[in-house]
């Protein structure tokens, strides 16, 4: 006798979360590439410096992407207080006993793929941890980036940012630059793991996480739902 | 009675002299350096290519020399040869450093021991002009010039604010110059202050600034491109030439005549200030690579006990020759403080045992200085211009023999007069004269010839990458700094500084006693000097200043 499969439609990611995610994903990609080039500039052909503006253009792109990233981040920050339950910081940071049990579950399922894979209305548990660090890193890159940026701007406001923004870094601009630079590699490693896991889930579980991030909805088989996930958030 | 002079002023750094005086004669003396930073420790673990910048900050007066000794040590350790133009440009920097440093020492640090500023106010400007014109062709010598200066000085003094000239030993009877010569010297004090700003521009062209110009392991940081707008081109070369001419003229027309004129009033100072008669010179101005020792313009060698008949060979890498002792220095050796250590094995472990400040006297029976006591084959050695002139003279260096001979004749004193306060001060001037006339112009021509022949490379980058270095290496960079022989000994391991030891000229001269109780040259030079008034120990200043102390160098 076949069991009836019950499907649940979840709506974990509000529009602002989705917009901010894709703007961030795009701008961080641009920032990584342009940032890498700023730190390791490609040697250009000899010629009259006034005709070429290669480095200038790269930096320009970096700054444009930086503004997009900042906007997206601020939007996400705000939405974490007012948005749907799954997009709230309270949920993101709810690292209680059940959460750790789920995290262990997830790890075991990765280590031993024969184990069943559980699904959630919102983020996967390990991913939550990663996102918290990603957001910290984003905040830090924005902070350090704007301190460096301000150091080359000479209006009173920017001078203020440059002078006082340097204080937490021990009044040491080069230190800020080093930290800003090293961040690149944090993002690079994160993106590889992140995209892999997203694709992995899609293939292994045929989940619709990506669609959820794109269109907002995902469809979950009730029996795949992790133990204790509350049903009331079902859309 | 014990007389303390602390601070010894008009020197670089923190020097304290304690002298025992009996019947108005110094019977014993102690030289103490009272500041230490630990730069030998600070460079440990750093990249050998960067270390010149650290060691350079040992001193901002002889601001180039520790950078040179450092890059030479690293180049020696890693086997880096530098292009001929780089060597010539480095020599240019060194030559300018000598001239700048010696002139400033004479006028701004030493002169006030002999020149009485208030006494200059009594001068007759016409008479001063006459004397000045009889001494040299220097253009600033009109009666009007001296009159204006006198007015300016009187103006300055009349406000009762003597600034840096206040409260000196101006009533001391040992000041002997006529007011006109005092006035001329004051004029040149101010002119030299002005002049020096110009000639250091040569360092600025080549190193970007002075004090503390930039250097580079493997060459020099500047590039030559006669058609380039940004680097060394004809404009820069002609400015350099202009300043060389200015330097040569000032030495020839101002410094040398002033020295000879002033010295002729103080010939009694040829009796005092003998530093012991041992002289050490590492050699300077390499014509080829650094270790082509027989191609050094100032030759290497050592002299013991005033004996000009024998010049000993010097090997700075021989563990038996150069050693440092910490018996009376505020340091500790793992092998025991009575042993000497060659700098390759050197240790820098501070161990202050002196009195708790504020204090009145040091305990001179124990440790009493931040300087180690360097010894050559166990002997305390004097280094510096006098050592260089004496060794070159003994080896028959033509230019040195000519100029030293000229001065001895002019002052009508025997060769032995060199071993004194007066001799030391004169040797510095004569050395400057030799460099200005017999070295610098030729050097400039050589630079132009090299550039003309297409030899424009200034950097050898073959061993720039640490991957090309051996796992372990050691090297020694020597140089003749203006104040004397300077050595940096470096050990490199896994691309990093493992041990770094510096012995500076003033360490040799100002160092304390060793384990056997042998005093250093400063200490020796003071013994036997009469002190007219222990409350105004001008005599101590004269002799100590004749060495041109630099304590930041000495202690590092």
């Amino acid at each position, binding site marked *: 006798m076949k069991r009836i499969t019950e499907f649940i439609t979840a709506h974990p990611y509000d529009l602002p979360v989705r917009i901010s995610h894709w703007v961030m994903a795009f701008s961080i990609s641009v920032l990584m590439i342009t940032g890498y080039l700023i730190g390791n500039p490609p040697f250009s052909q000899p010629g009259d410096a006034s005709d070429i503006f290669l480095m200038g253009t790269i930096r320009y792109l970096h700054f444009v992407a930086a503004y997009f990233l900042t906007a997206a981040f601020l939007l996400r920050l705000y939405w974490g207080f007012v948005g749907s339950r799954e997009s709230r910081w309270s949920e993101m940071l709810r690292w209680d006993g059940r959460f750790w049990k789920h995290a262990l579950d997830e790890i075991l399922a990765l280590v031993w793929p024969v184990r069943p894979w559980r699904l959630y209305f919102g983020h996967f548990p390990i991913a939550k941890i990663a996102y918290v660090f990603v957001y910290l890193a984003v905040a830090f890159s924005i902070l350090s980036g704007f301190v460096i940026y301000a*150091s080359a701007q000479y209006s009173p406001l920017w001078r203020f940012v440059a002078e006082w923004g340097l204080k937490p870094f021990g009044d040491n601009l080069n230190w800020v630059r080093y930290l800003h630079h090293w961040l690149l590699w944090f993002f690079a490693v994160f993106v590889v793991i992140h995209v892999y896991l997203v694709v992995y889930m899609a293939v292994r579980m045929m989940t619709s996480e990506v669609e959820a991030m794109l269109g907002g909805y995902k469809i979950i088989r009730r029996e795949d739902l992790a133990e204790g996930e509350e049903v009331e958030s079902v859309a | 009675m014990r007389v303390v002079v602390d601070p010894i002023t008009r020197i670089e*750094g923190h020097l304290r002299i304690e002298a025992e005086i009996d019947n108005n004669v110094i019977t014993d003396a102690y030289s103490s350096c009272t500041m230490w*930073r630990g730069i030998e420790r*600070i460079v440990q673990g750093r990249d050998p290519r960067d270390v010149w910048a650290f060691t350079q900050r040992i001193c901002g*007066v002889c601001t180039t020399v520790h950078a040179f000794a450092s890059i030479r040590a690293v180049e020696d350790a890693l086997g880096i040869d530098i292009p001929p133009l780089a060597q010539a440009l480095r020599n240019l920097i060194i030559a300018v450093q000598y001239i700048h440093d010696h002139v400033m020492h004479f006028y701004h640090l030493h002169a006030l021991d002999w020149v009485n500023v208030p006494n200059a106010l009594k001068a007759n400007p016409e008479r001063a002009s006459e004397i000045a014109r009889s001494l040299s062709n220097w253009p600033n010598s009109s009666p009007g010039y001296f009159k204006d200066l006198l007015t300016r000085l009187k103006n300055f003094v009349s406000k009762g604010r003597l600034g840096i000239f206040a409260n000196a030993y101006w009533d001391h009877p040992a000041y002997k110059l006529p007011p006109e010569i005092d006035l001329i010297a004051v004029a040149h004090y101010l002119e030299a202050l002005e002049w020096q*700003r110009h000639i250091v521009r040569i360092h600025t062209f080549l190193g*970007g*600034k002075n004090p503390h110009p930039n250097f580079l392991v493997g060459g020099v940081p500047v*590039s030559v491109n006669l058609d380039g707008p940004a680097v060394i081109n004809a404009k820069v070369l002609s400015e350099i030439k202009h300043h060389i001419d200015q330097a040569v003229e000032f030495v020839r027309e101002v410094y040398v005549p002033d020295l000879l004129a002033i010295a002729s009033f103080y010939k009694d100072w040829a009796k005092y200030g003998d530093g012991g008669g041992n002289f050490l010179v590492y050699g300077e101005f390499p014509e080829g690579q650094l270790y082509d020792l027989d191609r050094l313009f100032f030759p290497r060698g050592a002299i013991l006990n005033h004996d000009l008949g024998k010049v000993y060979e010097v090997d700075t890498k021989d563990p038996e020759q150069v050693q440092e002792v910490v018996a009376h220095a505020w340091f500790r050796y793992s092998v025991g403080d009575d042993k000497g250590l060659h700098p390759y094995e050197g240790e820098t472990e501070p161990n202050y045992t002196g009195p708790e400040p504020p204090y009145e006297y040091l305990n001179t029976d124990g440790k009493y200085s*931040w300087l180690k006591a360097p010894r050559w084959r166990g002997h305390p050695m004097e280094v510096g211009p006098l050592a260089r002139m004496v060794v070159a003279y003994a080896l028959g260096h033509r230019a040195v023999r000519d100029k030293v001979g000229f001065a001895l004749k002019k002052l009508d004193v025997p060769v032995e007069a060199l071993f004194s306060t007066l001799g030391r001060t004169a040797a510095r001037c004569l050395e400057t004269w030799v460099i200005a006339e017999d070295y610098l112009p030729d050097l400039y021509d050589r630079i132009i010839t090299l550039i003309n022949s297409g030899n424009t490379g200034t950097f050898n980058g073959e061993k720039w990458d640490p991957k090309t270095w051996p796992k372990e290496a050691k090297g020694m960079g020597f140089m003749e700094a203006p104040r004397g022989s300077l050595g940096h000994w470096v050990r490199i391991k896994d691309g990093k500084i493992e041990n770094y030891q510096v012995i500076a000229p003033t360490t040799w001269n100002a160092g304390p006693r060793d384990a056997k109780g042998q005093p250093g040259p400063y200490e020796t030079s003071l013994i036997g000097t009469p002190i007219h008034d222990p409350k105004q120990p001008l005599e101590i200043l004269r002799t100590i200043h004749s060495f041109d102390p630099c304590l930041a160098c000495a202690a590092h």
Partner: protein
Amino acid sequence: MSAIDVLEKLEEREIEELNRREFFKFCGRMAVLLGLSQTAIPRIARAVEKAARDGRPSVIWLNFQDCAGNTESFTRATAPSVGEALLDHVSLDYHEVLMAAAGHRAEERLKEVLKEYSGQIIVVVEGAIPTKDDGIYCTVAGRTAIQILKEIEPHALAFVAVGTCAAFGGIPKANPNPTGAVGLERIIRSKPVINVPGCPANPDVIMAVLVHYVLFNRLPELDAQRRPKFAFGKKIHDTCERRPHYDAGQFVLSFDDYGAKQGYCLYKVGCKGPVTYNVCAAWRWNMDASWPVKSGHPCLGCSERDFWDRYYPFYEHIPKTGGFGVEARADDIGKVALGLTGLTVGAHALYTAVVKSAERFAEKLASKAEEGTGESEGKDEGGEA
């Protein structure tokens, strides 16, 4: 007295006519720096002349854990030159490197000055201050630097920390800081401290700070690091003459290469101009002769706090990190980390695929066996709780 009068008065003095011209150039520069219009030049000149006529402010200069590089630098000042400054602008009442008096006489002089000008003295400090072991690493006349400073502090109008050592601790403070060296701001609490960093400080900046006081009878405006804004408001990189090459992406890759001969940007050989505030590029050194970057060497960032440790290494854009076998740059390590991550996820993907197909194979076998027994129940992946 009108400006014309001043000019005439000045022209009368045949001494060092050139210096007069330099002097006016200086006044002009002061005007620009201080944000005044060119019409202020005669006023500035007059103020300087006035200071020369009546009381010059008392300046005392103390040397501690220093190399005298800032003293030397001070003597290279352009307008006024140090000779003019000493005779006409300030009364340098104590400076061990230059003063005639020595020993007890020097100490005596210091005491007199402290008494006579108490509250009006500008105290210039050169060199760091050692704090370890009760400060015994630097004493003058038997007293430690700290003891001397504490004695002088009540009498000072303000302190000027010249050079990176006095301002931030500088080289004595570099790792491992053997003597516990600190900058002046850590010692002086009750009086203003003006930081004039640089190793050494630029002569014209030192002079301008003093002259600022002579001119306006007040101290210059300072930024958050207590540096005078007129000198430390811009970065080297933003005033650098090689900047067009930076924007074009034209770099010196190795000393004396093609780019070096063309005067390309020194970023890739470690230039710290992008992170350094100083006047070098704008004012240059030694009467416009040059400045470090112009002469082909990357800026070391010598006016920045802790540059010996944190603007390090000098010839690399990003530091090498020890402990990775051969020295590796942060970017090399990053690339390796990235590569390893890639390999790990690749391996995991493969691993999952293998385990999964093995599972499917086992299922197939099992279901074949089931068919044999005739029992049939739909089995779902993850069916057991």
